């Protein structure tokens, strides 16, 4: 719960972040690599890009595009395995947005039965920056996410007259270690839950009635079946397991997979339960807005709009859902 509040000037914020790096913490934030904004470790404050929404989401920090689960080697007639320990302790992820935090919150629900990933999700310290304006394609408000408040973070930074108001909880306190003097109890206007969101979510649930409607054909016509929407989405968690190596030794890798691609649901027999893009697009929209309501109790789309920017045909998942429902 964000119970404390302090005020930093521009300069203070910069020296705070540089201080963290100096203290040996790994600070990961949005940087521009070769024209593409993504989350990666930074060496000093001005590498950070804080005024744009990143192309790739922060999910990359917890679930990298490919990760080594374990390595195995065979000597004589014994097989040896070495697990890959990469935990996220003293990692600080800065530059998150309220929608990213909602994404992480969903991931915590999704991976509640997977100790390794859950442990990763709970160890890193998140520093969120509230959004003043919506980036093009954002529709977090329509899904009930307040763009300038998030209580699912350790530190919340809001711009104010000459600097930043920083609200933090006790985990945030460790990394901020502010002087007691300028700490004030946080008076922050918690957003009042408005009822229209709940019936919006219920309204979205009606999508399952439209399951066999002809409109899916029209909606999915623009989808080419690539994986870019899944790979930029903060809440997409599908993965593929691959073994690489030779008869003596090798390693098992876990890497991203996307339901949009044709091979995703192809059975060894050749049968494909979702043979064309119509079924695949429908599955994606239903999964984001309907299926997770039953399994995780909340819709898994956080309205960040990254998938709209990354899609070759700029399909808007939310508008399409509404279009189906009319």
């Amino acid at each position, binding site marked *: 719960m964000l119970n404390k509040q302090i005020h930093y000037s521009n300069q203070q914020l910069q020296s705070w972040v540089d201080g963290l790096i100096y203290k040996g913490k790994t600070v990961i934030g949005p940087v521009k690599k070769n024209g593409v904004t993504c989350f990666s470790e930074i060496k000093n404050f001005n590498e950070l890009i804080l005024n744009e929404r990143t192309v790739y989401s922060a999910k990359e920090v917890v679930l990298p595009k490919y990760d080594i689960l374990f*390595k*195995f*080697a*065979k000597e004589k*007639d*014994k*097989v*040896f*395995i*070495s697990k890959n320990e990469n935990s996220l302790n003293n990692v600080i992820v800065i530059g998150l947005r309220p929608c990213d935090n909602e994404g992480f919150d969903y991931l915590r629900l999704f991976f509640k039965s997977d100790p390794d990933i859950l442990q990763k999700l709970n160890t890193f310290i998140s520093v969120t920056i509230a959004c003043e304006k919506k980036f093009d394609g954002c529709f977090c408000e329509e899904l009930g996410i307040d763009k300038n408040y998030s209580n699912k973070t350790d530190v919340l930074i809001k711009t104010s007259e000459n600097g930043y108001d920083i609200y933090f909880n006790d985990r945030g306190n460790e990394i901020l270690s502010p002087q007691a003097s300028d700490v004030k109890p946080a008076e922050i206007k918690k957003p009042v839950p408005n009822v229209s969101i709940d019936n919006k979510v219920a309204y979205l649930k009606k999508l399952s009635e439209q399951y066999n409607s002809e409109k899916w054909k029209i909606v999915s016509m623009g989808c080419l079946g690539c994986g870019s929407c899944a790979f930029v989405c903060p809440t997409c968690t599908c993965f593929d397991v691959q073994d*690489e*190596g*030779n008869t003596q*030794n*090798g*390693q098992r890798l876990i890497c991203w997979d996307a339901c949009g691609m044709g091979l995703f649901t192809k059975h060894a027999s050749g049968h494909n339960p979702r043979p064309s893009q119509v079924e695949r697009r429908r599955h994606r929209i239903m999964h984001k807005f309907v299926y997770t309501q039953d399994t995780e109790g909340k819709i898994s789309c956080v309205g960040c709009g990254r998938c709209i920017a990354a899609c070759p045909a700029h399909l808007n998942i939310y508008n399409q859902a509404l279009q189906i429902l009319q």
Partner: protein
Amino acid sequence: MEDFEPKLAAFVCNWCTYAGADLTGTSRMKYPSNVRILRFPCTGRIDFMLVMKAFDSGVDGLIVSGCHPNDCHYTSGNFHAQRRWVVFKEVLDIMGFDTRRIFFTWVSAAEGAKWAKVVTDAVEELKKLGPYSEFKKILLKKLQFPLDNKTADREIKTEPVIS
């Protein structure tokens, strides 16, 4: 890099260069033993993917050799191969791959001496160039063993299974 022993593979066509290598053997000529020869029916059969797989399996250099133009047992295999290599070499050059490590030659069945020379020169050149470490850096998978903290997981007895 004197003590470095390059790992060299050779994709050769069965009718000319393989026979040429046989002739090098029958005339007891000596050449360095770093090379491993793989037999293909024709240079036309040598796929650019297999060349990439050779470097994927960690070789430092590769000899690709076949019949001289117009000598091909299948009349035109080497012509098609030649055109493919022009394009393949170009894409590797653009990508900055070290194409000096791929030696394209024609060795006929009668040129035993030339085969020995090709292998010796190739090993010489690779010793100068050293191991292909940039490429091996991205080959992270197989080459970083033995395991750091290994825990015995299970034992597998390989007793003969009567199928």
